[in-house]
């Protein structure tokens, strides 16, 4: 049997563990809070309200429906950011499991990504359904591209997350580095502002824009910003780059993870 097939088969045998870990992560996050699961919706709304006020009225990004832009870029970004932060400690925080049970270690970063993904899906659908109409977002045919966007976002985040989960075992500093780098990456992606306004006025000087486009997250975010904010389908160029880069990162991440999976127990 091909080693990759064997790895996947072993993972499937532990699908119940994966499921329970996802449920446990979600349940523990909100158990014993008065609002419970509603927090997964309230907190992005409040965060975005604050950002909208700051960037619209204080920094004065003169952009129609700025909040909608923020929603379309911020929610996917928050998923990526929290998945990377959680995944990087997913193995070192469950050291007890890794050193005492022969579980497929991939379930640990996978469960963190899964729990965050459930949050993202809930938040984005509730926000689009409840808040969207108030802000002038109407369902558009372009939304059929959203599942593809979710797929690319998940693949990219998981690929990078599993890589970080292993690398942090060998270099514990990585966890702190990730925490520091994420906000910087957010401004570079860009999440809080577009490269150019709808009327074509550049926010980022045209000569610098190519550098922003070297960032894979830029292309993945386009799969959300295009349908939700602009109400249009992503271009073929954007679809190709986003899916190609996501799959590449996922494959590299899994390859790195499985290469080190048997060895990492000696470094915990």
């Amino acid at each position, binding site marked *: 049997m091909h080693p990759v097939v064997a790895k996947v088969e072993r993972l499937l045998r*532990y699908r119940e563990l994966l499921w329970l870990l996802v449920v446990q992560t979600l*349940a523990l996050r909100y*158990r014993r809070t008065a609002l419970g699961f509603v927090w997964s919706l309230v907190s992005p709304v409040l965060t975005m309200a604050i950002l909208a006020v700051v960037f619209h009225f204080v920094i004065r990004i003169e952009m129609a429906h700025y909040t909608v832009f923020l929603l379309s870029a911020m929610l996917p970004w928050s998923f990526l950011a929290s998945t990377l932060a959680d995944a990087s400690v997913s193995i070192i925080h469950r050291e007890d*499991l890794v050193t005492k*049970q*022969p579980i497929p270690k991939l379930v640990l970063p996978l469960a963190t990504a899964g729990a965050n993904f459930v949050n993202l899906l809930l938040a984005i659908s509730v926000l689009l359904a409840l808040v969207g109409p108030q802000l002038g977002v109407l369902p558009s045919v372009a939304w059929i591209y959203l599942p593809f966007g979710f797929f690319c976002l998940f693949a990219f985040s998981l690929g990078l997350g599993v890589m970080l989960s292993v690398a942090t075992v060998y*270099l*514990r500093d990585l966890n702190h580095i990730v925490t520091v780098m994420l906000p910087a990456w957010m401004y570079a992606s860009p999440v809080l502002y577009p490269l150019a306004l709808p009327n074509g006025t550049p926010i980022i000087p045209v000569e610098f824009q190519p550098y922003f486009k070297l960032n894979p997250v830029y292309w993945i975010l386009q799969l959300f910003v295009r349908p939700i904010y602009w109400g249009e389908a992503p271009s073929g160029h954007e679809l190709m780059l986003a899916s190609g880069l996501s799959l590449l990162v996922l494959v590299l991440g899994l390859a790195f993870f499985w290469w080190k999976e048997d060895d990492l127990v000696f470094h915990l």
Partner: protein
Amino acid sequence: MSSARREPRPDPGKRNEPPPSIVAEGVALRFVLERHSSLKSVALQTLGRVFGRVRIPPSAPRELWPLQDIDLQLVRGDRLGIVGRNGAGKTTLLRVLAGIYPPTRGRVTRVGTIAPVLQLGLGFHAELTGRENVHLASAIAGTPLSTMKAKLDEIFRFAELEDYVDVPLKYYSTGMYARLAFAVATELETDTLLLDEVFAVGDQYWIRSALERIESLIDRVGILVLVSHDLGLIERICNRAILLDEGRIQLDGSVPEVLDRYRSGA
């Protein structure tokens, strides 16, 4: 109790599957103790290399061989007791048999499912209820959830915790926690069970039923491996034993033979 000839009941659902076995051939395990690589040491070494002049020697890695020349064959019906002094490599051997540590040399071949119990209550979370923790503990050990759900009542009845099924674990006393963990560990559905110093904790009455439960494993589990300093327990349960010393099998034989050698300190 002499149960050396007792064969486990054949499991009707598994009639066509090959009988469980674990074979270790020439297994050796190496630990490399390097100074924990931190960003600082990596950066210093890189800088040292780049600027050539300052040579920061990488701290010489120290090697340890916690297991060497391990040859062991376990087949269906074997109930192996492992004895040896602290640090002899008993738990490490269980980890290698379970597949947690890949051997540095040699190989381990396994047929059937293996559930190691190296720590009672592994994966238990104080905020989760007894029921949720039982589900989690069994999933961690690879026991199907459907099996565990069917056994749930029996587990809580045995642990004498019928009223605590849906109570978060943090409201359990230490004894209650230990009883639940023990009840789960001895109810796992597996071909091979590896138990590491699984003590029965509780009042005298409960300890007696716990011992009976360990004995009942003889009938339910294909291969049982027991690490214990409780030689009486090994005499009651096991039909084979090995003596480990400094990572090597000093003696592989019958229980009385191995325990005699161990007691005599040779």
